[in-house]
């Protein structure tokens, strides 16, 4: 091998070695090394406290002035509702704010003629009264005429005295559950539909049509014994003769009765009658055998 050849081979080897994918040194300038100091937390907390204090003082002052105005102009039950923290029909704007313990900063108020609408300024951070999360308050001639609450089953609107009672609230919730059940039924999800109807029935005991819906769902789910009981309960809950006398006015209910009676006959033929619950007899309380106690 000649000298120029040797030189070229060495050069190639040097280039290959240089191109080797070896470890690279990190050449970043350190931002913190031994001997430095970490910033003090107390300064950050003190700054936040100072800012928070001024913000809260402003909000509290605003809330207190609204509260004073609300209490100065209220009478009787409205006053009691303000103190209890419950928006009631007939309240003024200041009283509604006082009932939710909020200041004007929490609301956006829109006026159009005699109608005024008050909605929370920040969605997802809605003010609450004693009943629940308030999503809209409507005023007519500067008095509350409807309050909307966000509840588990959707929005519940309180626009009459009957809606404000416990029964009124239960009815509204039951109606929402029935609507949900109907939607599941239409979508073919009978298990969920039955669950919603059952829950609605817990709040609306006297609803015969709801009982019929539960019976139908059980029947469609091939649970004949339970369906039979429900059909019977449905028929028992009605005064059949009266409904027949009303004729077409109750055509839908009459149709449900006829169907329930038909299904009952079929179900009774298919399966034995549901076992009657034996009358409860007083039983003598006997102590457990000593062996079972020793085992534990």
């Amino acid at each position, binding site marked *: 091998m000649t000298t120029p050849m040797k030189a070229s081979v060495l050069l190639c080897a040097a280039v290959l070695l240089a191109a080797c994918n070896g470890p690279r040194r990190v050449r970043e300038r350190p931002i913190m090394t*031994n001997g430095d*100091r970490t910033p003090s*937390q107390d300064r950050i*907390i003190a700054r936040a*406290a100072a800012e928070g204090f001024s913000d*809260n003082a402003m909000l509290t002052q605003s809330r207190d002035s609204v509260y004073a105005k609300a209490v100065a102009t209220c009478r009787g039950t409205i006053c009691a509702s303000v103190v209890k923290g419950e928006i009631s029909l007939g309240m003024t704007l200041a009283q509604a704010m006082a009932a939710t313990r909020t*200041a004007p900063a929490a609301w956006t108020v829109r006026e159009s003629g005699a109608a005024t609408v008050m909605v929370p300024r920040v969605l997802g951070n809605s003010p609450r009264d004693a009943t629940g999360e308030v999503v809209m308050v409507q005023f007519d001639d500067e008095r509350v005429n409807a309050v909307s609450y966000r509840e588990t089953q959707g929005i519940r609107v309180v626009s009459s005295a009957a809606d404000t009672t416990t029964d009124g609230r239960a009815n509204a919730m039951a109606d929402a559950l029935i609507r949900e059940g109907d939607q599941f039924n239409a979508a073919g999800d009978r298990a969920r539909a039955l669950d919603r109807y059952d829950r609605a029935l817990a709040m609306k005991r006297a609803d015969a049509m709801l009982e019929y819906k539960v019976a139908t769902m059980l029947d469609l789910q091939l649970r004949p014994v339970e369906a039979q009981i429900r059909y019977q309960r449905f028929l028992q809950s009605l005064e059949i003769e009266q409904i027949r006398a009303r004729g077409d006015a109750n055509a839908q209910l009459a149709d449900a009765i006829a169907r329930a009676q038909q299904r009952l006959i079929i179900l009774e033929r298919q399966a034995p009658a549901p076992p009657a619950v034996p009358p409860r007899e007083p039983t003598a309380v006997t102590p457990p055998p000593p062996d079972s106690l020793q085992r534990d």
Partner: protein
Amino acid sequence: MTFLTTVALRRAAVLGLAAVTLAACNNKRVSRVDPSSVTDLSGRWNDVDSKLVANALIDQSVGGQWNGQYASAHGGTPPTVIVGSFRNRTLEHVPIGTFVKDLERAYVNSGRVRLVASRDERSEVRDERDDQQTNASAETRARIGKESGANYMLQGDVQAIEDAEGREKIVFYQIDAFLVDLESNQKVWIGQHKIKKYIDRRRIGW
């Protein structure tokens, strides 16, 4: 110089050498240093990392919009927070409690957030309250059913990525914290802090 003098000198030298050797063995030195000082020895997670994380999360959380929005929607009442689980997803031992407690301190001392006892803490308090119902006098007894419900739960985790080659190592920590609305499951605030460490173990160095 007599033979006896020479022997005495030799003995003295041996004793002196032994004393110096013994003194050199006692190499433990303890001193108090400023807790805010940066002291990195091994390169693993340490107090400096904890403080940096706490500072960043305090600044982001207490100064965030979420508590102001809540306060303005509730007439100046600050939101109530409960500390939930904060997980260490690294292979290292990372004491989570140090920076979480710093964050709790900031919440309470700033007055912008109310804090309620966490699941572990409250069981002891409830035991004491139950005990008071039997043993404390009526006027000093703590009442039952007056606990404050939290609006938000603080959760988070610590994750790490390591990269090493030879004597060099890079460790990257990412600390995420978030506040979840207990009713709607909405995350109302997310805080984050990242730490990247370069560890170079030189064989010879000053």
